[in-house]
């Protein structure tokens, strides 16, 4: 079985548009949740979101932008960073041994909604001819493949909040089993449209407007939590087979050693601690690690009433007595819930935490919920006593649970 290493990462997020800026903002507890500037934002109960501030014109010509939804633009930016950071060359036959594993929840939501608006409101007789290629869920994967020269298999996973964690996990498996030598994995989401936000609002999982500090509305594991705040962005990683990465002198950031993927099969939205615990155990078993060897966890921690209690229960089930000792961070409080991109973004946060030896805070956790009584690193970041192994949890609607475990890179296999 091959070892799988990470050799490049890319981030486009509400907290900054490269991995270092993103992680620094997380550690400093800077909020990425801001007032939504859209003309229709007054129609929302809480007009806040984790928005990406990026100069699209500076990165894409007008011709290049034709047929690209915002989700694909963000995806391309993150993928370019990861490829460039890894220094990998995928031109020619190298690209045939590379695969693309991408996650998204709603794909080209902006293009789809604009077309419905044209049709139903403007009574347009026909729609923009690029609507389909902009809106389809695999648009980002196709466009990344074109730019990067990836010509092996490509997959788009749509598993709600766990989409891009699944994408990374499946990419890891493909490299581990020798299906591909290199994988570009990650996810993107750009769903801050009026229709999508109103639909989320109706579901009752978004944070309410009851606070005089709306940028702190998402409060994972807090007694006064009321739900999450949606965000947009993209995160990408280059995974490589270890020997090939060493041979080309790649700089290795971390090693992926475990992946668990389970389905609750109980309810379409209500999470299930048993399903989550099985995914964590599966990832630990593959990594050949005891729970007590995990030094930091990036929680799914969305800030919903039910979700945070269930995740706490699942963590206690898996980690037993050690559950209260492992520092656990819920970073969605600061960057928002990036849906199809969130698993990849948070896995990168966990890897950065391991590399830098510091756990980012769970922001806005002024009033801990007694039912969520683990070490959720409230309010301020904390140096990690040990930082060899980290876990990242992603649990999505549809009962989809994906757990990734990464290890500090050492050349010799343990």
């Amino acid at each position: 079985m091959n070892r799988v290493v990470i050799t490049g990462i890319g981030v486009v997020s509400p907290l900054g548009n490269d991995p270092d800026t993103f992680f620094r903002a997380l550690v400093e507890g800077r909020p990425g949740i801001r007032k939504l500037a859209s003309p229709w934002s007054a129609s929302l109960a809480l007009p806040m979101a984790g928005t990406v501030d990026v100069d699209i014109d500076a990165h894409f010509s007008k011709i290049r932008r034709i047929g690209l939804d915002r989700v694909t633009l963000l995806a391309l930016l993150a993928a370019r960073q990861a490829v460039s950071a890894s220094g990998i060359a995928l031109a020619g036959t190298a690209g045939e041994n590379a695969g693309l594993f991408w996650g998204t929840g709603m794909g080209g939501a902006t293009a789809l909604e604009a077309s419905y608006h044209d049709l139903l409101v403007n009574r347009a007789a026909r729609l923009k001819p690029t609507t389909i290629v902009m809106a389809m869920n695999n648009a980002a994967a196709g466009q990344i493949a074109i730019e990067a020269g990836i010509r092996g298999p490509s997959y788009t996973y749509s598993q709600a909040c766990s989409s891009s964690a699944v994408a990374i996990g499946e990419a890891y498996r493909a490299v581990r089993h020798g299906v591909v030598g290199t994988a570009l994995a990650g996810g993107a989401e750009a769903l801050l449209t009026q229709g999508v936000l109103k639909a989320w609002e109706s579901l009752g999982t978004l944070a309410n407007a009851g606070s005089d500090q709306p940028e702190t509305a998402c409060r994972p594991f807090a007694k006064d939590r009321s739900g999450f705040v949606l965000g947009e962005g993209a995160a990408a990683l280059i995974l490589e087979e270890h020997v090939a990465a060493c041979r080309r002198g790649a700089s290795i950031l971390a090693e992926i050693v475990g992946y668990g993927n389970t389905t609750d099969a109980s309810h379409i939205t209500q999470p299930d601690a048993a399903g989550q615990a099985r995914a964590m155990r599966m990832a630990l078993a593959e990594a050949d690690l005891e729970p007590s060897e995990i030094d930091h966890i990036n929680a799914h921690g969305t800030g919903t009433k039910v979700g945070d209690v269930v995740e706490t229960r699942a963590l206690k089930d898996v980690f037993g007595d050690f559950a209260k000792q492992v520092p656990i961070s819920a970073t969605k409080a600061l960057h928002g819930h990036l849906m199809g991109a969130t698993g990849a973004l948070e896995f990168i946060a966990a890897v950065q935490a391991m590399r830098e030896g510091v756990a980012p805070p769970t922001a806005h956790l002024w009033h801990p919920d007694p039912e969520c009584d683990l070490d959720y690193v409230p309010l301020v970041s904390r140096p990690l006593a040990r930082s060899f192994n980290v876990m990242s949890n992603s649990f999505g609607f549809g009962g989809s649970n994906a757990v990734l475990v990464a290890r500090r890179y050492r050349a010799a296999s343990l």
Partner: protein
Amino acid sequence: MSTLEVIQQMMMSEFDLKREQLGASAKLAELGIDSLATIEFLFLLEERFKLDLNSEPVPIATVGDIAIEIDRLLAHKLADAPA
């Protein structure tokens, strides 16, 4: 303004291209305008010239090809107009 000039103006604004790139013999593919971008542009031209380009597809490879096709359809439209 001739049809070609209107098309050149529209291409400058739609695609951020410069006038000197848009000679009649300039190839669309070499300008970075692929088949999807061409269709989008033809839709804009239909609205601008009040034409229906859906009738029969014609090979369009250059900026000049688009002008020739538009002029041909405009002539048809004039001929078909009630006296």
